[in-house]
């Protein structure tokens, strides 16, 4: 089982390291990366300053395993990686990192989009949006 959940924001150094690890795979011609960044959305006269993520980790890992297997069936991929933050991620920081690699570029965009949508729709992750005034609301995906 590959590790998906990371404590706190996903750093650009972590992303760079993931990219660098693929340089020894000489059949790869195309990578596509999706990064979700926490937005300072307005909520009434307040603003979102951070999101606190929790998950039902055992179920999430089972679901993520199914999603990975289905993606390899559906698309011509050399490898794929999914990372998601738990705990606090501040505005401007990265909370999800989906990384798809393939010999050719044709399918990588669609594969990434499909994976991101699956994670958002099917994986039990919950975001609590923390506002300026320390109140909060539960995030709803659109």
């Amino acid at each position, binding site marked *: 089982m590959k590790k998906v959940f990371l404590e706190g924001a996903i750093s650009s150094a972590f992303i760079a390291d993931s990219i660098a690890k693929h340089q020894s795979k000489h059949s790869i011609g195309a990578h596509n990366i999706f990064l979700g960044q926490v937005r300072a959305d307005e909520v009434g006269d307040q603003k979102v300053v951070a999101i606190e*993520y929790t998950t*039902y980790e055992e179920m999430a890992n089972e679901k993520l395993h199914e999603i990975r297997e289905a993606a390899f069936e559906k698309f011509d991929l050399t490898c794929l990686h999914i990372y998601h933050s738990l705990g606090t991620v501040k505005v401007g920081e990265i909370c999800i990192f989906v990384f798809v690699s393939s010999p050719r570029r044709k399918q990588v965009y669609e594969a990434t989009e499909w994976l991101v949508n699956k994670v958002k729709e099917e994986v039990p992750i*919950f975001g609590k949006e923390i506002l300026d005034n320390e109140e909060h609301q539960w995030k709803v995906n659109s």
Partner: protein
Amino acid sequence: MITINYFGNIAEAAQSDSETLDLKSMSLEDLLELLDSKYGIKKFQFQVAVNRKIISTKQGLSLSDRDEIALLPPFSGG
């Protein structure tokens, strides 16, 4: 013993992430009534997972010893 896991706004209402009920068996319907009387869960939107699979609450499921129930508000990852 049945374990119930709470998430998001339901965990807030229950003031807990998890509890165990010392029951040998119970219908899922009765369990949800019981939890509504304790925490008013019916005012929330949620799905139910039994042993980490989402199930329909309308199928008259009987819970048994060691089942793991979870009340899951709308997912909002990403």
